């Protein structure tokens, strides 16, 4: 065979081998077949690879180069076809898997509900947060109290007539009538004065007890929040300012407040505080006043150096009115149908 013929026949054979490899790639049905084919094509004795050994027969360098280039191009083309076909198979395989994994999520959704915080707790926390914003800390005390903390230290000595208004529940504990269920959160004032020392900016929420027959607006067990500020230079204007700031922060900026004279044994001057709604109606909220000097002395504070004010009101009513509960007793039935509404 002439040299020219040799080059020509090799070129034809190479192209033919390439086409047959491409055809095989196109006609392979799946990834496994493609992998087998790829292995076959990469074997040393595969049709294309066998030309590499035959290249030595070519006499001229130029011929070797042109056949070499042809072989490389064919190999690159086949490799690209293999890769693209592989990707095709992989894509359709993952698509099929995805299809087969279809789930109805609505069927699987488990209604895992959060529990419900009691509305009195919610009200307490909202009140606490407002006062925290005004620079107050929160103090706590026991619900079972001594006569001293509940009355005597609050300027109500044993024979004080105002004691009878508290409808106190006493306990069969210790000396008769010496241990009781606190009738207000005010005993915490004394505990705070003794343990914190001024300056004091404190609120005292908690459970209190009165010997009151339950009705739509009263419970024998209910909740109060009390505030106490003791510092140098505290005046009545600071009391009125704090009540006003609280009113706006808690009820809304459209509300205003007023203080009017009243009487409590533990404060003097004493006041009732009312809030006014945007529609002009006044609502009685609670009691307040400048801490009585005798109370400061009970708490170990010099009334000539420090002055202060205190205020207090009911929490249950806040919850009752916010949620428009008709009868306060409903709040304490522990009926889940009631609790789950809030």
């Amino acid at each position, binding site marked *: 065979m002439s040299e020219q013929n040799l080059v020509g026949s090799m070129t034809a054979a190479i192209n033919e081998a390439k086409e047959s490899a491409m055809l095989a790639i196109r006609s392979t049905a799946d990834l496994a077949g493609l992998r087998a084919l790829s292995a076959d094509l990469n074997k040393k004795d595969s049709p294309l690879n066998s030309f590499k050994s035959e290249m030595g027969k070519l006499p001229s360098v130029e011929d070797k180069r042109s056949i070499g280039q042809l072989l490389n191009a064919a190999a690159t083309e086949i490799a690209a076809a293999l890769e693209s076909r592989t990707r095709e198979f992989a894509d359709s395989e993952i698509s099929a898997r995805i299809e087969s994994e279809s789930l109805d999520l609505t069927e699987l959704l488990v209604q895992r509900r959060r529990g419900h915080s009691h509305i*009195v707790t919610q009200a307490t926390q909202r009140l606490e947060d407002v006062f925290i914003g005004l620079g107050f800390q929160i103090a706590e005390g026991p619900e079972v109290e001594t006569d001293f903390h509940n009355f005597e230290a609050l300027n109500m000595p044993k024979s004080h*007539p105002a004691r009878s208004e508290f409808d106190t529940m006493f306990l069969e504990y210790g000396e008769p009538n010496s241990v009781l269920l606190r009738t207000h959160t005010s005993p915490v004032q004394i505990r705070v004065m003794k343990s914190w020392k001024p300056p004091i900016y404190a609120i005292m929420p908690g459970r209190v007890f009165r010997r009151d027959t339950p009705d739509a607006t009263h419970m024998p067990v209910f909740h109060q929040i009390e505030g106490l500020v003791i510092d140098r230079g505290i005046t009545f204007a600071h009391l009125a300012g704090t009540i006003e700031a609280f009113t706006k922060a808690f009820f809304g900026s459209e509300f205003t407040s007023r203080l009017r004279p009243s009487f409590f044994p533990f404060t003097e001057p004493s006041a009732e505080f009312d809030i006014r709604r945007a529609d002009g109606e006044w609502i009685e909220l609670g009691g307040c006043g400048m801490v009585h000097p005798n109370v400061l002395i009970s708490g170990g504070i010099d009334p000539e150096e420090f002055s202060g004010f205190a205020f207090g009101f009911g929490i249950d009513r806040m919850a009752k009115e916010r949620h428009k509960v008709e009868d306060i007793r409903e709040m304490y039935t522990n009926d889940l149908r009631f609790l789950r509404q809030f």
Partner: protein
Amino acid sequence: MKILNSWLNDFGAFGTNVEKLAEALTSLGLAVESVTTVGTPVKGVVVAKVLRTERHPDAEKVHRVYVDAGDGKELHVWCGAFNMKSGDLIPLATLGTTMPDGRIITARGILGIESHGMLCSGTELGLTADADGILILPSNLKLGTDVFAALGIKQDSVFDLDVTRNRPDCNGYLGVARDLGARLGIKVVAPSGDKAKKGVSRSMKVTIVDKSRCARYNMTLMSGVVVGDSPSWIAQRLANCGMRPINNVVDASNLVMLELNQPTHAFDAEKVNNGFKIRCARPGETLLTLDGQVRDLESSDLLICDGKDNAIGLAGVMGGASTEISEQTKTVALETAWFESSGVAKTATRLGLKSEASMRFERGVDPYGVDHAVSRFAVLLRESCPDLVVHGGAADAKEKSLPPKQKVVSLRVGQVNRILGVKLSAKAISVMLAKIGFATKATSAAKSATLKIAVPSWRPDCETEIDIVEEVARHYGYENLGKIVPQSTMHGRLSPLQQRRRDIREVVLSMGLSEAMPNPFLAPGDLVKAGLSEDNAIRLSNPLVYEESVLRTSLRPGLLKAISFNISHRASKISLFELGHVYPSGSADSAEGLPDEFESLCLVAVGETSSLALDWWSQISSVMGFGAQLDQASVEPGYHPKRSAILRRGKQVLGCVGEIDPRVLAQHQINTSVACLELNLSVLLAETPRIATAKSVSRFPRSDFDLAFTVPNSQSAGAVMKALRQAGGSELVDLELFDVYRGAGLPNDSRSLTFRLCLQASDRTLTDAEVTAIRQKCLNAAAKLGALLRN
């Protein structure tokens, strides 16, 4: 205290601007609870005379009243009240009258018999606050005339004041007028006294035995009394203030009390034997009081006795029946006294006899208002008794216990300004106080001045400087004192404990439990029903009801009741929690003599088992960083003995987890299991969570392997785990029980526990030999507990 607008005007020119007056009263601390209009004329109501009354056999609740409305004709009216007799004058609403409540009077009767109008009570006409039956009119009115015109009734307003305990003077018109006059700049005049010449001296002897209880006792005799109806203006005023007119003597006494806050008591002098003696009761003594009841007396009750030592009145509370004023009374013995307040309070409370008089003595009356009260009584009685003689030589016993005429209290100008945040001068303060009768005895221009303030005798509440500061504040006006928000010098925040309490609530809520607030009072037996002891429970001395007489020592009984309640209402998925105080009795030597009160958290879920309770515990403990061991060896009473554990740290018990004892559940009619977790928050929340110290993460590979053991049921998984952890040492960085199997291939009394162990060193790659050695140590440790490696 009810204040009639027109009457108030007798004390000063207050006018009739009701809104303005109400606002001023409220701003003075005399809170106006309501303002009502009285005496609005009802057209068509005329004076009629009762001719006769008759029962009808078929009408039980009404009778037939025949009346004459002035034209001589007999009208027939059905009436449901029986308090009238022939000859009485009564108000008749004629046909067509529109009543204040909107009803129109028609002739429609009952049993086919028409009614020619309606007889009216005082309430129906808006004349009196309360009424027993038909209003009986004064006998001197002209038949057929308009009732309102005949009575001289004009429209008026009544202010209902809430008088606080510290203002006894305002239980009388004069006190209210004095404050209001000072606020509005209106001159106030006390009602006039008797100007008639005193009659011949006549007196009855007064002996005060218990001098600490009665400091003043004035006994004035008045003769020439003719008992009858009061003039209509007196009756009207009393009625409008909620008091029933009785007769001219009693009414005059009541009117004086309302005007001057001085109760008086009128005895029929002829029925009083030989003078008066004021002493405390003797045990076993009794008294028939004016209301017809026999009162058993105690030695703390102060009595008015006659000269023969027989009780004739309960001092300051109520008179006795034997000396009551009657139509035959000719001479009145008028008692005007000052009784010690707490004694009156004690008797009135004990006997449940809270009268207008006792209320005033309790709060405090003016010990120097006696003479004016006597004189005023005479003026009022003289209106209906023109021949009244007030005898001279009245007995007026005074004791040392009588409060002084004036108390002098020091008032520092600086203190007024310091407390109120104002800059008032000494003079301004003096002027303000003078208007309410507080005289300044010494003053100076200096800013540091101390004023000597003479407190009038009608203000027993003002005893110290701060009391006077309050008076200044009231009259300066609370609304004028300004509003300043103080700059808190503290950092507003929750304490760490309070923050942790909110955190734990969040965890519990997120687990789906709702918050209950059961009654902290239990019925006797409730604790026992919940499997708990009642020995450490405290009882209330004065419970509202027997069923609420025991203080809880645990939150469980309350929650069990709540569960029963919800089951009875067919609620599903009942899961509740409570966070609250419990009050077991403490050791007697506790610092303040208080019980061992602590804060507890209890979670319950119906139809759930201990595995849910453990799940709660594991979530809570991991979020909150609580640590405790499960101790199943001892059982908390009330819990399932085989399905619960105490949460323990050393000797300290932190709570309990598991299921409620089925016997307890049966007691509560709960027929499914209840998961329960209880924690002592007073201990757990007080702990500061440990702050983690950073450790470098190991860069070396870890080797994981599983060990499956056959373990007898008597050996707890926790114990095996603990042994493995100890044996594994510091290289055992993770240990997990990931499978529990009971059944085929295992002995009946055993189960298989499979643990996954993860070994890793921080400074090197563990060699195979090291891993094998640790594994062997673990196997040995487990074997000691009877846990044998499965093949």
